[in-house]
């Protein structure tokens, strides 16, 4: 077990290097660059752009740029942003709490709800509930997030005025937990809706599979109550693919969800990433990719360990 974790962490060193290398190369080879923002500026001309290119170090060959970035990283220097010259680490870290909060609550809500709906759907297969849940989930997945987001804001914030329409807190109420929760409701609901929908589908299929196994009959023969059979016998068997899914989704805790953040003005990572992508803020992008890599490594490692912990037949290699 500990050896397994050590091996995996060792494997992730080349992974991070590879990822950063690929990321760097892709970013720089793709057309367009950070200087395009200046083109729209009326008073900027070609010399200005050339001058700034040199200041940003973009005139150097890519491999030199990479080596510079990488050696900086090794020293713990994540670099500075092009625009504003702020330390990348600061720029990223100041967004982390918001993202974690939103994604964490959305994931938590979605997992619980998704599982519940999925399980019920599997148990009451072909019932009205099953059909409703199926249609609902598919509907939720077929419309883009922005549509639900705008609808929710329109209904609950603009029309009914029950909830704030966006942001993380009322200005001046930064420390008020109740206020924060109020602000969390709509984005969590909208974001959670989509995740709930897909989780409910996966959960339903996983439970359908497990419920027909012979050992479920044994559990029944023991006289176990329905919920006991479900929780103790079906759950650990059915939950394995879902854990794998969770491992894949864990990076979202870091990378955030762009559309929901935009609609709800949530100061999260998704917006930062897409802003950085559209401005080609290479230093921020690289920083975020490295962070995401860490989350991916940890997420999938945890998932693998959890699966092996649940199912003794699975060997950790």
């Amino acid at each position: 077990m500990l050896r397994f974790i050590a091996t995996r962490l060792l494997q992730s060193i080349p992974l991070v290097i590879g990822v950063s290398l690929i990321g760097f190369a892709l970013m720089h080879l793709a057309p367009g660059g950070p200087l395009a923002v200046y083109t729209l500026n009326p008073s900027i001309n070609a010399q200005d752009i050339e001058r700034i290119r040199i200041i940003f170090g973009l005139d150097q060959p890519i491999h030199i740029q990479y080596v510079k970035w990488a050696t900086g990283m090794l020293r713990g220097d994540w670099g500075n942003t092009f625009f504003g010259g702020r330390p990348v680490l600061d720029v990223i870290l100041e967004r982390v709490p918001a993202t974690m909060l939103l994604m964490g609550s959305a994931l938590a809500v979605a997992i619980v709800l998704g599982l519940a709906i999925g399980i019920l759907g599997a148990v009451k297969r072909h019932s009205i509930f099953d059909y409703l849940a199926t249609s609902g989930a598919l509907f939720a997945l077929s419309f883009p997030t922005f549509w639900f987001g705008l609808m929710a804001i329109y209904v609950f914030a603009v029309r009914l005025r029950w909830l704030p329409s966006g942001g993380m807190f009322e200005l001046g109420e930064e420390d008020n937990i109740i206020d924060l929760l109020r602000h969390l409701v709509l984005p969590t609901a909208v974001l959670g809706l989509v995740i709930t929908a897909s989780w409910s589908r996966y959960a339903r299929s996983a439970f359908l599979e497990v419920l027909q196994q012979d050992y479920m009959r044994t559990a029944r023969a023991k006289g176990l109550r329905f919920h006991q059979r479900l929780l103790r016998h079906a759950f650990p068997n059915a939950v394995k693919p879902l854990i794998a899914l969770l491992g894949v989704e864990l990076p979202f805790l870091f990378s955030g969800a762009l559309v929901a953040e935009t609609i709800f003005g949530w100061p999260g990572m998704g917006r930062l990433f897409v802003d950085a992508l559209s401005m080609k803020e290479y230093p921020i992008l690289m920083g975020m990719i490295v962070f995401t890599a860490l989350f991916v490594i940890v997420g999938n490692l945890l998932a693998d360990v959890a699966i092996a912990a649940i199912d003794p037949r699975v060997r950790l290699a």
Partner: protein
Amino acid sequence: MTATVAVNFGAGRRLARRFAGHRLALFGAVVVVLLCAAALFAPLIAPHDPVELDTSLRFMAPFQSATHPLGTDEIGRDTLSRLLYGGRVSLTVGLVAMLTTVLTGASIGVLAGYLGGWVDALLMRFVDTMLCFPQVFLLLVIAAFIPPTLLSMSLIIGLTSWMEVSRIVRSEVLHLREQDFILAARALGASSGRIMFRELLPNAAAPILVAATLKVASAVLMESYISYLGYGVQPPLASWGNMLTNAQGYFDTVPWLAVLPGVLITLTVMGFNFLGDGLRDALDPRLTLNR
């Protein structure tokens, strides 16, 4: 696969029978076929040229006029025609991307799970690598290198979204491979390929089929997103996704602009879902059907 005979051996007919007995699956198949046919024959059915615009007729509501049965959009294009033509883009993207996702994801998952060892480590680190880049990033970067045609775009979407499928499939295979029937296949001298694709995959079919359904929806929406960012279908070509995106500004004032393409996407996804359900039920002989 080399020996489809064996799949068809009794199972083929039985599968078809079980499938046909599945009312919902039949319904799903009918929906998908109808939608595909509508898209295919769009030039014959569509009342208008989908790019023809007449700004004086914009925002016509559905069911108000015979010439524009489903109304018109923000610059007076016929919604019905755009939906029909848009189906060509969206259905292609949905289907091709879904197939790519599922084939890639399932293959990699089963390879990693069954072969284990360094193959597993290598493939899973590859998956991790792919996961490190947000999909938008991958999409945009790849799309920037490959000229965006409908097919290439679908493939790109598919090739950037298979990772969760592979992880799920792998997690299933990890315990399936320890079961006696896999030993039995090995004892028969079945090659690893046969074991993976004939013995293991059918047992991991359920989550794959779920993923397939979900991927249809996400691919259709993803297409509109990359188009929105400038790498996909170019205006004025319609797709359900970009019709939805364009309707974003009118979500409360002219809601049907978003609802109509949204409903079509939902219908498509439902169609695929029920098809998938039917297939799964047919593949899984233990799940007996309810009539």
